[in-house]
């Protein structure tokens, strides 16, 4: 896929977070920027965007919902205010946005958020453990006795989709379609616009059909709960239900798939940590937190609401601002030896799941899936290694994780 913007000339003044080079060399790019005395990079691509790199800045932006709106959290070629006058493209304005609560600002945000929180509370999520364990084992059974397996294609990408489809009440046979829409929303942000629009249309039609089916044939699942839920005294419109379902599909699939893939990538490239965890599975929960810190999958975005100065740069209304939680997690002001992966790190206030009011609603589920997926992989493949760097393919855009991850199995059970 080629970017409409062409190759990056300079990461300080012309960055492109959706250029394949960015996710491939993300840590070196940040280190170079910081070494050049640049804590906040700029680009004129996408109509103008900023990339702050310190924990302090990321924290401040996440908390300052007055200057930074969530109306659109994925940087795109078109800014919402540019199409507000075109009914076929316009998205609902702040404080609601197209996919509440992630696109919402206070005071509306908390009302939408409350509708989703109970379904993802620890006491609801913890009982899913045996089911996830069974799924992970089944995926490994299917691999047979090949010398090399693709830990992304044959393993990580399936786990979150199965759980999300089940929770929402959507057919699991459509898993490939869900993944292709997730790709559309998150990865191909710099592809030609006409290609993108037709696919969006298809996605919306799919959701409308299934929501209509849920209205006609009620059953017990999250779509049903949302259709019956009340928000500030009135039932949700089917558009709003559609927006929330989109959010859960998009937010729940790619992210966790990346989190599992990043963890396996680390283990495949680090024999000491791999053997230590295989021998001491009770260390996995703490190690997963360290993988979440060091390889946080998700960068969010905000739009600037009014011209203002921010840490010495002049931000303009409608500028995009990326919110790279992964960079905040490697800030030496917050973490000792931030570039080192320490699988038994004790002090770990990482922000992989965000900071402030938008804290990831799915964090309990994502953590459970990552813990089980890593545990089962190590149980079944106590030793394995990366086939080659070249064959590892990274995602592009705001969610970072391996999309191809061939590993050689050195021992199996």
């Amino acid at each position, binding site marked *: 896929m080629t970017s409409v913007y062409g190759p990056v000339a300079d990461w300080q003044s012309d960055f492109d977070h959706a250029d394949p080079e960015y996710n491939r060399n993300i840590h070196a790019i940040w280190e170079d920027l910081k070494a050049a005395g640049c804590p906040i990079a700029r680009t004129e691509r996408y109509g103008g965007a900023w990339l702050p790199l310190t924990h302090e800045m990321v924290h401040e932006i996440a908390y300052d919902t007055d200057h930074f709106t969530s109306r659109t959290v994925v940087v795109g070629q078109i800014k919402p205010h540019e199409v507000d006058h075109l009914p076929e493209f316009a998205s609902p304005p702040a404080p609601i946005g197209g996919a509440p609560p992630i696109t919402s600002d206070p005071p509306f945000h908390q009302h939408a958020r409350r509708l989703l929180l*109970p379904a993802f*509370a620890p*006491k609801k999520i913890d009982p899913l453990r045996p089911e996830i364990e069974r799924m992970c084992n089944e995926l490994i059974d299917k691999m047979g006795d090949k010398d090399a397996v693709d830990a992304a294609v044959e393993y990580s990408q399936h786990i979150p989709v199965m759980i999300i489809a089940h929770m929402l009440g959507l057919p699991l046979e459509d898993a490939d379609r869900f993944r292709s829409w997730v790709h559309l929303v998150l990865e191909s942000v710099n592809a030609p616009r006409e290609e993108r629009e037709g696919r969006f249309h298809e996605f919306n039609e799919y959701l409308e059909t299934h929501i209509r089916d849920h209205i006609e044939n009620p059953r017990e699942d999250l779509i049903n709960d949302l259709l019956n839920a009340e928000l500030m005294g009135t039932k949700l419109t089917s558009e709003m239900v559609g927006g929330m379902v989109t959010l859960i599909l998009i937010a729940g699939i790619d992210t966790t798939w990346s989190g599992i893939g990043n963890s396996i990538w680390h283990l495949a490239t680090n024999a000491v940590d791999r053997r230590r965890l295989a021998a001491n599975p009770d260390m996995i929960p703490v190690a997963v937190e360290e993988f979440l810190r060091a390889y946080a999958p998700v960068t969010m975005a905000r739009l600037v609401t009014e011209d203002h100065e921010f840490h010495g740069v002049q931000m303009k209304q409608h500028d995009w601002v990326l919110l790279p939680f992964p960079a905040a997690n490697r800030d030496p002001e917050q973490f000792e030896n931030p570039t080192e992966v320490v699988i038994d790190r004790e*002090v*770990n*206030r990482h922000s992989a799941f965000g*900071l402030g009011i938008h*804290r990831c609603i799915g964090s309990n589920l994502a953590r459970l899936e990552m813990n089980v997926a890593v545990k089962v992989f190590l149980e079944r493949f106590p030793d394995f290694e990366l086939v080659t760097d070249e064959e590892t393919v990274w995602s592009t855009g705001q969610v970072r994780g391996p999309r191809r991850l061939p590993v050689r199995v050195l021992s199996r059970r």
Partner: protein
Amino acid sequence: MRVRVDSSKCQGHNRCYALAPELFDVDDLGNASELNDGVVPAGLEDKARLAAANCPEFAIIIEE
């Protein structure tokens, strides 16, 4: 030792509950609270410190 959750900062990351369920609880909406009025039973001081050291929002206060 006592622990306290600053509810104006807590965003429900649930790290405290995962690391020290003897000391914290979380409700359906993700709000954490301290159990037993925040009194930390003898022997659980390290767990209390660990929970505080892993709260991303700096919402856990320890009073020694």
